[in-house]
């Protein structure tokens, strides 16, 4: 870019930043999101309770492999006999979209978010809470997708009040839930 336009460029950037408050205005693509009916938030079902705990503009993802549209997976990760819940969602931030998986637990009839892990790739391919290492407690398996290049499977277990990454591997069609 020629030097004489650099001043104008900086000036226009400044003006846009000033007008936009904090940053470039959202692109049309960023603004597409499903409508959230506000009244339904009062209903007592679990999914609404959990959605309320997510960040405001979060968009819940369904795994590609399960067409049934199971947005929430349940499984007992800490072995107390009560199922924990996992929701995978997309959150917009300054640089783009972040994939995240949030783990919730039921404590005194109230759901609380206890942990959160970051996701990779374009979207969620697979999510399952099942006992993989046969220790009586469920593990969390998350399959992130990068399209044709393949998918990445992360398996987490609940240890010492935190999600611990047990294994990380690539799979193509179906995830291999064995730890080795």
């Amino acid at each position, binding site marked *: *870019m020629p030097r004489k336009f650099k001043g*104008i*460029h900086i*000036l*226009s*950037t400044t*003006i*846009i930043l000033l007008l936009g408050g904090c940053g*470039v*205005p959202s*692109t049309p*693509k960023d603004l597409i999101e499903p409508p959230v009916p506000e009244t339904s938030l009062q209903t007592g079902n679990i999914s609404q309770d959990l959605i309320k705990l997510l960040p405001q503009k979060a968009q819940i993802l369904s795994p590609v492999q399960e067409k049934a549209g199971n947005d929430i997976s349940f499984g007992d990760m800490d072995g107390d006999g009560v199922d924990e819940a996992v929701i995978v969602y997309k959150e917009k931030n300054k*640089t*783009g*979209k972040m994939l995240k998986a949030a783990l919730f637990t039921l404590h005194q009839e109230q759901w609380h978010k206890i942990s959160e892990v970051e996701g*990779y*790739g*374009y979207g969620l391919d697979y999510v399952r809470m099942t006992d993989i290492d046969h220790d009586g407690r469920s593990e969390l398996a998350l399959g*992130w997708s*990068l*399209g*044709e*290049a*393949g998918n*990445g499977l992360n398996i987490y277990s609940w240890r010492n009040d935190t999600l611990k990454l047990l294994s*990380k*591997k*690539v799979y193509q069609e179906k995830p291999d839930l064995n730890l080795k």
Partner: protein
Amino acid sequence: MSIQKRLVGSYLVVITLTVLILEVFLILSVRYYYFHNIERVLMNQAELSASFFEQYFAEEDLEQQSERLLQGFAYHSDAQVQIIHPSGRLLQDSTGFSSRITMTQYADVQSAISGEPGTWRGKDSLTQEAVLSVSYPLEAHHVTVGAVRFVTSLKATITTVNQITVLLIGVGVLVIAIVTVLGLFLSGTITKSIKDLKKAADRMTDGDFSIHVHKRYRDELGSLADTFNMMASRIVKSEKLKNDFISSVSHELRTPLTSIKGWVITLKSNGAGNKELFHEGLEIIESESDRLGRMLNELLDFSKLDSGRIALHIAPVNVTELLNHIGRQLAPRAARQGIALDLEADGILPVIQADENRLKQVLINLIDNSLKFTDTPGRITVHATTKQKHVVITVTDTGSGISEEKLANVLQKFYKEDPHAPGSGLGLAISDQIVKLHHGELRISSKIDIGTKVQISLPIEGPEF
């Protein structure tokens, strides 16, 4: 330059400037918005691809899995995707140019290979198109093992931005055109009124005062048109007053002159023997000459007052003495007409700063007027009092009174209620002027058949304060 041209010109300057500022801002914003967003989308994609690579594919050799990786990286993107070896060698290209060329001449590739994301805008050496490229380092265990590069042609973007630019400029030109037409129309509403006024003024300069300016709008120019019309009618009226005055003054001057001349002829033919007749003739000639002299003095006074050449000789004046003096002077005439002349004063009147002779002239004139318009038996009261640093002298008569519409004109010069009545019609106008020179005020109120009340108030301190 005409007002219309100036008005339209200034409208045009203002709107052109406004449109220009807006256009520059909008066009720059649109350009920035498009180019920045494209860069952002590519950067996000590159970042996403690189982080996925780091998480899951870092174990394998980049070159061996490059074909599969390319499919994944290009999965959601319409851009050209390239995978580059740390040496700068092109490993994979989504458009299929897998000729093993080196890419190190591009700034973004250099930056990515050294570990930092980079962007580059320029001309593609192969297709001669303007392109935007974003390169992102692919890392395995914190070591850069290559780079992923997203390239997009800017041809369509530039076309779109240019289309929007043309559209914006078109709208701007349209706005300017509309404002110009509106400006012509709006300025017409002003200039038409002004042209009307100018035409009327031209005709007045030529001496035609029978004009009537058409009032187009109820604005400042409309009220100016009203003022013009009023001015013209006032000029016509004062012209008529002046003509009446000249004819009445000529008449007034002729009456004593005729009488003088008649007596001169009588005395010339048979006044030599008759001493009594001779004496009577001379007496009449003397009094008629005095009358002429008084009238001429009045005229002179007035012209002096009118042109502001009169000077007051301010000295302390004892109002009580002045009133007594005037009373003594006019009592015989009042007695002759069978009218009672009363002088009253509230308490002791102060000594005021004024021109005694002029003040006397005013009072005599006022009482004289009352005597003229009061029939026998009548009463004229001159009352003096002190009020808020002013001496107020009121002359009240039980005369014929003045009607309301004529009351407004009595202070005007040359005005006479009856054009054939004796006098110059200047008395009250002169009195008013003299009182004003003293910084005082002259007020007249009157009721038909009941009488007239003239009130003059003069500041005790005189006109200097």
